[in-house]
């Protein structure tokens, strides 16, 4: 019996593709009921799904797929009849399959299951008695777990025809890295492959449905790409440090080598960012179905078009964008586009138009969601804003697009249900705007009464993501990149030592220079609490301790460039927008540590502090 859990992720992603294809084909048929050609590929998609469900032991879902397959088989042969009678059942069938897939989702995606590893080894040509070397590797593997599927068979190792390559699967609790290290330790062998058998490059369960799509892809778990990028992020920091340490110190070949290594690292960074790019259709493919359902629910007739499906965006960005787009599309159908009868009265075509366009513009992407509906009612928005005490302009008709945007993305206004009813807009737009800001993007709106509304979302192509610790100091929030933090602790009063008017923290028997982060940044410090939360930052051989008001937790943030006024200390590495939409500065830890050390080394601490305060003050 195969342990199917190993294949769960692959199964799910591939089965979802088939459900998507099915939905697309059903929509196509709904649009043109006379044309029966979508039924054949739809039948094939369901058939493939049926097989996949059975292979995974999902009997009930397999049965549902079987029923759907039967309905489609019958329709294939029939002449075009009353489509509206069958379609709801078919769509419902597709939904059932999708739900079955969600149910089959692995409950804890965290730890990869301990399973069989696929191992390939090669004994280099120069090794004497390669077969015996292979035997030693095999013996080591058997110490770690059960070996199966050995190729060539063990007897062949002593023959003269042994090629030097050996392949087997290893059932073990040890991880791939551990196994690889152990095999490496045998000596005289190269480990070519050592990975979970269910991962990547696994044979496709079903052939690609789309004819002409003969390109080959490797499915890779997204976490692996994230891991890769994290490592490179760490390497980039090491590179910066290396450059800092050697600046002006080295020349000639060493300098050349350092320069070359850093250039190659930049290339590698670019290459990995490129690998993370995925085409927009990965999220937009499910939108036609979503728009159709929204239109059905609200009794609207909508033609939906997607342009620019092949534009590529960073995977994590695309995932985060998806929610906002769903929001805007639903809004467009629910509130933008008028009911068919009303449209006819207005002299518009019965069917409304909803369009999603994705445009690449240099290092940015613009996503437009536009409808040809009634437009946003500026009077209602302004009136409602005034009612809620949000500054309104009075002459509502004169609201500019940017003023309108400001109002509809204001939490108090936009989330109020009355606004939705009156103006026909606004629900959750503040969420969309905030989401975009956290991604380093921006939102624009163009709306004309009677002719429609266009939302423009501008985004960077890639995200510079950073793991950071959020802290509060002097009542403000700051982000400190995790990679630069040596540790955090809560210091008791007796751990703090005063020397020559400066404070030190006793950390594992050593005295570490201590300064309040607020003091360092020249903002009024909050009253000291006890125990005192401390962030320890390592700077080369030295460490410094920064006291803060409190730790706010770790968070993944998007770093945006930040240009401090010239001539000021470079204590900040950038800025970010937090989840609640508020900006926060990212501390440049090495500069901060250097500044603390400088202050502690200086003669008069008070003077130095005053100096620091005035310098920072000039920056803000």
């Amino acid at each position, binding site marked *: 019996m195969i342990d199917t859990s190993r294949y769960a992720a692959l199964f799910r992603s591939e089965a979802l593709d088939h459900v998507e294809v099915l939905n697309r084909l059903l929509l196509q048929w709904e649009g043109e009921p006379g044309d029966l050609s979508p039924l054949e590929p739809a039948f094939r998609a369901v058939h493939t799904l049926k097989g996949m469900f059975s292979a995974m032991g999902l009997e009930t879902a397999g049965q549902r797929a079987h029923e759907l397959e039967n309905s489609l088989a019958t329709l294939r042969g029939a002449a075009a009849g009353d489509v509206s009678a069958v379609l709801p059942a078919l769509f419902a069938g597709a939904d059932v399959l999708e739900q079955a897939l969600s149910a089959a989702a692995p409950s804890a995606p965290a730890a990869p299951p301990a399973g069989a590893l696929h191992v390939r080894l090669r004994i280099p040509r120069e090794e*004497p008695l390669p077969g*015996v070397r292979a035997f030693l590797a095999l013996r080591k593997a058997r110490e770690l777990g059960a070996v199966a599927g050995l190729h060539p068979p063990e007897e062949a190792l*002593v023959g003269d025809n042994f090629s030097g390559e050996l392949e087997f699967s290893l059932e073990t609790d040890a991880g791939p890295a551990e196994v690889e290290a152990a095999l490496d330790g045998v000596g005289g062998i190269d480990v070519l492959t050592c990975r979970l058998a269910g991962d990547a490059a696994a044979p496709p369960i079903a052939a690609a449905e789309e004819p002409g799509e003969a390109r080959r892809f490797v499915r890779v778990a997204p976490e692996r790409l994230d891991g890769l990028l994290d490592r490179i992020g760490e390497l980039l920091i090491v590179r910066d440090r290396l450059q800092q340490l050697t600046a002006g110190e080295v020349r000639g070949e060493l300098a050349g080598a350092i320069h070359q290594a850093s250039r190659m690292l930049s290339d590698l960074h670019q290459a990995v960012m490129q690998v993370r790019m995925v085409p927009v259709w990965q999220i937009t493919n499910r939108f036609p179905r979503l728009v159709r359902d929204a239109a059905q629910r609200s009794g609207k007739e909508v033609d939906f078009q997607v342009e620019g499906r092949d534009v590529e965006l960073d995977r994590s960005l695309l995932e985060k964008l998806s929610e906002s787009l769903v929001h805007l599309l639903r809004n467009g159908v629910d509130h933008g586009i008028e009911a068919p009868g009303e449209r006819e009265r207005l002299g518009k075509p019965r069917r409304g138009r909803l369009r999603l366009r994705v445009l690449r513009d240099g290092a940015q992407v613009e996503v437009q969601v536009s409808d040809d509906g009634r437009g946003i009612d500026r009077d209602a928005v302004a009136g409602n804003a005034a009612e809620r005490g949000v500054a309104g302009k009075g002459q509502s008709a004169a609201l500019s697009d940017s003023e309108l945007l400001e109002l509809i993305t204001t939490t108090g206004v936009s989330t109020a249900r009355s606004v939705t009813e009156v103006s026909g807009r606004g629900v959750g737009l503040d969420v969309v705007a905030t989401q975009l800001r956290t991604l380093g993007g921006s939102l624009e709106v163009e709306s004309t009464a009677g002719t429609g509304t266009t939302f423009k979302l501008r985004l960077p192509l890639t995200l510079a993501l950073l793991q950071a610790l959020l802290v509060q100091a002097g009542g403000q929030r700051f982000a400190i990149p995790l990679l630069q933090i040596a540790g955090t602790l809560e210091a008791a009063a007796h751990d703090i030592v005063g020397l020559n008017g400066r404070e030190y923290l006793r950390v594992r028997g050593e005295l570490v220079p201590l300064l309040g982060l607020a003091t360092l940044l020249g903002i009024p410090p909050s009253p000291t609490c006890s125990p005192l939360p401390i962030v320890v930052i390592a700077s080369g051989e030295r460490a410094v301790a920064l006291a803060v008001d409190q730790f706010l937790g770790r968070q993944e943030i998007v770093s945006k460039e930040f240009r401090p006024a010239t001539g000021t200390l470079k204590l900040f590495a950038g800025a970010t927008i937090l989840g609640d939409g508020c900006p926060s500065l990212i501390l440049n830890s090495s500069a901060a540590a250097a500044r603390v050390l400088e202050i502690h080394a200086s003669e008069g601490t008070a003077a130095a502090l005053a100096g620091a305060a005035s310098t920072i003050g000039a920056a803000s």
Partner: protein
Amino acid sequence: MKQSVLICDDALFMRTMIKDILSEAGYQVVGEAATGAEAVEQFRALQPELVTMDIVMPDMGGIDAVREIIGEHPEATILMCSAMGQQALVIEALQAGAKDFIVKPFQPSRVLEAVQRVLS
């Protein structure tokens, strides 16, 4: 503290070569044996940290000597010395409990590499 080695080979020439390689690298050769039986006897007396063992020797071959030694001291570290073309015999010795093997003609670097590997 130097690690102790027992060298087993029926040819004095081979023993001398291995001895020179290991001594130069800082190992202490505490004994030599020219037969399998001697090897077992010397092992009991000296309890060396490493044994290099020729396969073909008079009066009990190297493989039987490995079985004997491992039977008494399962943790013993034995490195087989083999000639080309002795795959099957080396595998037999490894199955009997030898840790690794080196192949004649000996290259000092390869010998030391193998020794370091099994002693680590």
